[in-house]
């Protein structure tokens, strides 16, 4: 199951950005999530899922893109555990 909905809830709780303010394909930067806010959000996402998001996604700018990364990492996590 995609983490997208969970990520939407997380960013709404952390920064007050609900789905109308920040859709899955809306630019986070354009919505006021600057580089520092993004770093802190990604840290929270890592803590929540127990994953480490590789530092090789400089263009990451939407929740949908982030959800793809998180889903892959979680799938790998599950596979490793299995």
């Amino acid at each position: 199951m995609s983490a997208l909905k969970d990520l939407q809830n997380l960013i709404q709780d952390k920064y007050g950005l609900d789905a109308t303010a920040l859709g899955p394909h809306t630019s986070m930067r354009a919505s006021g999530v600057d580089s520092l806010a993004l770093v802190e959000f990604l840290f929270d996402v890592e803590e929540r899922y127990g994953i480490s998001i590789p530092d090789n996604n400089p263009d990451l700018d939407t929740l949908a893109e982030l959800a793809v990364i998180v889903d892959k990492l979680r799938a790998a996590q599950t596979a490793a555990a299995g």
Partner: protein
Amino acid sequence: MNEVVVSGLGVVSPHGDDAQAMFDAVMRGESAVQAVFPDLACPAAAATVAFDERRWFTKLQLPGVDRVSQLAVAAADLAVRDAGGLTDVDHERVGVYVGCGMGGATALESAYRAGGRVPPLTIPAFMPNAPAAHVAMRLGVKGPVITYSVACASSAVAIAEAAKALRCGEIDVAIAGGSEALIVPGVVLAWQAMMTLASFAPGEAAHACRPFASDRSGFVLGEGAAFLVLETAGRARARGARVYAQLAGWGLSCDATHLTKPDAGGQQRALRAALRQAGLQPADVGYCNAHGTATKIGDVVEADALRGVWGEAAGDLQVSSTKALHGHLLGGAGALEAVITVLALHRRQLPPNANCANPDPAMGLNLVPQAGASAPQLQAAISSSFAFGGTNATLLFARC
């Protein structure tokens, strides 16, 4: 040389965020000190700020912004509003001068206590110049934005340095003050280890700090931020600004003798320098908001310094340490006490030297009584801040 005047005041203090109401509370002798962190082995007291960061920041603005910076942004904003805004000045000709002793203590404490991964913005949240940077970003200030970390004299030094820049024409407006927010268990434990904090019986925290009293036992920590808007007298006149006072003189000196032990000679050099710059005699100054930390040695040395400079006029100098009521804001102390001194001068009311039912006779000072005092003839007042490290700072304000 330009004259420097005070045209705006802003505080986020243990007595609230309205400067006039804060002064009223101090005049009434209301203590903002209370017991904190009951889990600590040794009882602790502090004066903390009831601060709702949502009034000043959206959630999106808060990543990496420690409490010390939040308080600074709010107090600076209030000071600028009080001065009528910054709309009629080139923002490259505005400076921000901030005293901060420690920096983002909450961020550092949280990092230590995280128990695992350290939050990624701990460093920008902790760095001592963060409050100044956040004030500059909030107000769009593009001139000099400088932080002074001189322990307990930090913000008095910042105000003096701002005044110098105005005096020599480097800037037209300064937002000068300080911020400190270190009431976290780790820092309180460190101060307890230093053996300078007041001891108190259960239920007696509010009266724990007793400056210049026979039964004094040290200070209590406080947190908060305070800022003054300083500008040249010419600019203030031209725009019809309400002016609280003139910053007529300031004196900076260093004991150069001991890291933590105060020295009357060093303090006297700061006091005399402030008088000299203002062109005033001791008898011209009617009120001293003392450093007055209520430590056994500190109060004696400060009293010696004052008597040494004021001489025969010492009896006419009324003295109080308001730290008894708002705690010791350390890097923010000089700024909050400067605001109190300016308002004392402006309103000609002297805040009490509270919690001093038994004045130490060895002091030889004319302490402001518990009920406070009116001072209808008051023309000038000083605020002193003496720091660990030996730096002494005295600000001298005069009525316009």
